[in-house]
């Protein structure tokens, strides 16, 4: 007889699993956390290297020398912008045409679901201006994009100046094999999203955008540029995109080679690169940067215009020029040369970037961790859920066997009642999740009428109210749930909840490892521990502390702590409310998935554990 079909052996195996379950779970959880923390250390982290042969090892000499021209353009742009208050479309069109590009404009409009307090927008209508530099001797089948997002809070005029000067320089060269699109967007990311949707002829986010008159072929790569002043001390690169998508690592390697070639100071996550990887300092700094990247990737926000390009599988980066209090500064010519070099190398590409990694973590600009090496961390955490579910299944089965033997036929009916008793909590928690997803935006006007708050605040407060209302559920709904065979009822519910959580976290970890890992690290222990017996207040406090909203709150504090700008509680609360509003807004304007995942997926799951805790 086989191991699993022999009842004697099966019972022995069951007893073994039941006995060792708790130590195995603890060990697995600790292994997962330890593996994650070890990711910044040398055997698991490797040096980056250029995988694409076409971008090769040869360097090209940059000849960009239009620094003065760039500054002149920037001054003009800033002046016109101040005069008109919005993007000076006519001036941009004229200038781009004088530089030699084919110029087109595109208008777009969007009514946000509720007013955006951070950017002070509600009804948005703007114009994007873009110029196409056609490849002199090639068919216009492929293109590269250099984009400068202009918003009202960050005018980015230096970047516009540099873009125009680069366009003038590029126009004089004959070696372009791909078209180059120079894009200036209004309302930064909203304009970029409108342009991308019109370019690819899709409508994903409900933006009304006019169709594009001029097109240039499939976009191979894009670079977004943000400069706050004309002298920069360092260039910061942002890679995390919408829903945690990342560009191909080769694009980052390309940027890094030009940083080294031009002697530019390049930073990742706003921090200097750790130099000393042999002692402990380097890996510890790397760990700090790794955690920052994990937090940014988990938030699922597009951290720059590049984040929106990634959805269309266009590899993109955002470069931000930072002007801090360092002595050595670089002018626009240095930044321009780096961009010229990058575009010239991208010009050599024959196919889309596909040779290097698409899923990775970055402890430093020149080090990376590939998915094969970081996935086991999430695997260990989810193993805890699997082990606990197995234990519950065996306990249920034994209890069922124990009950069936004296009773016989009422067994199936008892089981049937058990299943029926599960449906109610599942439906109710899912309904709460749906309410959390739909009601805040839908009911904002009603709330604003009855309470003296603005619409944005109404949305956030409704969100929090529904979330808290869910905590009161078990006390109100347990009358609906039948109480036959109380022990088996909560165990069955917990089993279903564990499997549900494991499935969700597994799926999330595949596409956005950081989000999956973060949620698993907080929710898995308390989910495993939840049971109606024992100290209820302690378990309740733990469960509330590890609920998705509390994880968001805590990660905000962690993020600011890692950036060495710690928050006080009041500041943290304000930031938390702003983050909630941004999360809902981004879901509606860009299709970010964090809000629906948390409200429709993880919050109902968490409520099931809450139900288990308060099972009577």
């Amino acid at each position: 007889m086989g191991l699993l079909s022999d009842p004697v052996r099966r019972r022995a195996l069951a007893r073994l699993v039941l006995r060792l379950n708790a130590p195995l779970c603890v060990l697995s959880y600790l292994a997962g956390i330890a593996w994650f923390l070890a990711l910044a250390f040398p055997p698991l982290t490797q040096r980056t290297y250029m995988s694409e042969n076409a971008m090769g090892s040869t360097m090209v000499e940059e000849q960009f020398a239009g620094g003065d021209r760039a500054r002149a353009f920037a001054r003009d742009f800033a002046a016109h912008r101040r005069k008109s208050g919005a993007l000076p479309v006519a001036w941009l069109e004229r200038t781009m045409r004088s530089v030699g590009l084919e110029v087109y404009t595109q208008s777009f409009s969007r009514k946000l679901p509720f007013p955006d307090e951070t950017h002070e927008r509600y009804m948005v209508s703007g114009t994007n201006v873009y110029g196409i530099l056609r490849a002199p001797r090639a068919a216009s089948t492929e293109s590269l994009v250099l984009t400068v997002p202009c918003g009202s809070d960050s005018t980015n005029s230096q970047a516009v100046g540099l873009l125009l000067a680069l366009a003038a320089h590029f126009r004089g060269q004959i070696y372009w094999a791909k078209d180059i699109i120079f894009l200036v967007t209004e309302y930064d990311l909203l304009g970029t999203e409108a342009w991308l949707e019109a370019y690819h002829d899709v409508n994903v986010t409900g933006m009304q955008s006019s169709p594009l008159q001029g097109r240039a072929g499939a976009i191979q790569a894009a670079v977004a540029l943000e400069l706050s002043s004309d002298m920069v001390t360092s260039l910061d690169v942002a890679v995390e995109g919408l829903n945690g998508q990342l560009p191909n690592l080769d694009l980052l390697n390309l940027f890094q080679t030009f940083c080294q070639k031009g002697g530019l100071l390049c930073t990742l996550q706003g921090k200097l690169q750790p130099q000393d990887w042999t002692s402990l300092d380097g890996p510890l700094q790397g760990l700090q940067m790794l955690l920052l990247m994990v937090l940014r990737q988990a938030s699922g926000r597009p951290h720059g215009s590049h984040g929106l390009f990634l959805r269309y599988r266009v590899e993109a980066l955002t470069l931000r020029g930072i002007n801090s209090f360092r002595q050595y500064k670089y002018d626009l010519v240095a930044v321009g040369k780096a961009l010229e070099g990058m575009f010239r190398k991208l010009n050599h590409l024959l196919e889309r970037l596909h040779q290097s990694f698409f899923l990775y973590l970055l402890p430093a600009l020149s080090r990376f961790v590939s998915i094969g090496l970081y996935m086991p961390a999430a695997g260990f955490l989810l193993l805890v859920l699997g082990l606990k579910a197995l234990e519950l299944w065996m306990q249920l089965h034994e209890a069922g066997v124990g009950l069936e033997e004296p009773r016989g036929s009422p067994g199936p009916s008892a089981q049937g009642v058990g299943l029926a008793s599960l449906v109610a909590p599942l439906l109710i928690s899912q309904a709460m999740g749906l309410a959390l997803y739909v009601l805040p935006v839908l009911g904002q006007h009603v709330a604003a009428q009855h309470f003296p708050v603005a619409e944005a605040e109404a949305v956030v407060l409704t969100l929090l109210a529904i979330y808290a209302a869910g905590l009161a559920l078990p006390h109100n709904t347990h009358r609906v749930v039948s109480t036959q065979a109380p022990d088996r009822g909560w165990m069955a519910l917990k089993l279903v909840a564990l499997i549900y959580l494991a499935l969700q976290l597994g799926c999330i970890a595949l596409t956005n490892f950081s989000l999956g890992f973060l949620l698993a690290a907080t929710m898995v222990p308390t989910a495993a521990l939840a049971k109606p017996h024992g100290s209820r207040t302690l378990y309740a406090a733990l469960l509330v502390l590890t609920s998705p909203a509390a994880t968001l709150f805590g990660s905000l504090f962690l993020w600011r702590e890692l950036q060495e700008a710690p928050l006080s509680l009041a500041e943290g609360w304000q930031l938390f409310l702003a983050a909630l509003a941004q999360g809902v807004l981004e879901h509606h304007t860009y299709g970010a998935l964090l809000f629906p995942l948390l409200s429709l997926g993880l919050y109902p799951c968490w409520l099931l554990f809450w139900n288990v805790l308060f099972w009577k």
Partner: protein
Amino acid sequence: MAVSHCFSRAASAFTAVLLFSFGCVAASHIEDQAEQFFRSGHTNNWAVLVCTSRFWFNYRHVANTLSVYRSVKRLGIPDSHIVLMLADDMACNPRNPKPATVFSHKNMELNVYGDDVEVDYRSYEVTVENFLRVLTGRIPPSTPRSKRLLSDDRSNILIYMTGHGGNGFLKFQDSEEITNIELADAFEQMWQKRRYNELLFIIDTCQGASMYERFYSPNIMALASSQVGEDSLSHQPDPAIGVHLMDRYTFYVLEFLEEINPASQTNMNDLFQVCPKSLCVSTPGHRTDLFQRDPKNVLITDFFGSVRKVEITTETINLQQDSEIMESSYKEDQMDEELMEPLKYAEQLPVAQIIHQHFEDSFPLCSALHSF
């Protein structure tokens, strides 16, 4: 009077004897020269130059082939006797910042594309099949003349190949490969069809020496840029164009060939010394065991140029019975006589022998029974 007459007669006899002896010596000198005249045995030269890789970052392979093309043309082989196969067009590539040029040196001193280039097989026409058809002559009748290798048994052929290769193969255009065995068999076909007198095979790829390991036909000399297990390296990158311009081995071969003119007496041993390991990083190799002449007697221009041998003489040359040419023609006469006899074909399937063998193996005691 009689004495002066006698003296003059003696003097004239003496001078006649002297002249006669000089004449004899001169005649033997002329015969030596005549021997030298026919020593290489070839009357025409061909070149097959192949570049097998495409894409902009393989600029250097096209530059390699074009530099050998340039040397070969300069030394006298006309376009009608050169089959040039280039897998991609670098001169007119949209990424080329200097259109219509292919440079071999980073200071852009030498434009190997030149003013008149005749590319016979271009772009996607460079395939293994086309290459083998060119070599063996099995070409469809519609092929234009410029795409054929119309060599005969008195042709010296130079075959130069470059691209990406490995141990025993050469990659054609990212989609197929030619192995060293196929190449050796193609050369054997050429030998059997009397399509060459002598062949010089030069290959500049990684692990190039593996490509000539399998040759088994006579009169082949081979050179390669690297041994098995070594990579051939490229020479210099050009920051203005953005690619590596040439491979090291061919760069130094080009430098060497630039010194050669049609009258040079430089021989193959000098070519073997080109690009030592200190310059090339890889170890160039060569193979001469199949070649009948001594490499030091083989001129560079025997393969790289098309040198018309012209000797002006006012003497009569008596081609002796025991000279090489008479021997070979004598042998031909003998062969003609042999051919007069009726031809006999070998048995295709020696049934008797097979059955005999089988019988013997299975019934060793019954060896007396067979009576076929």
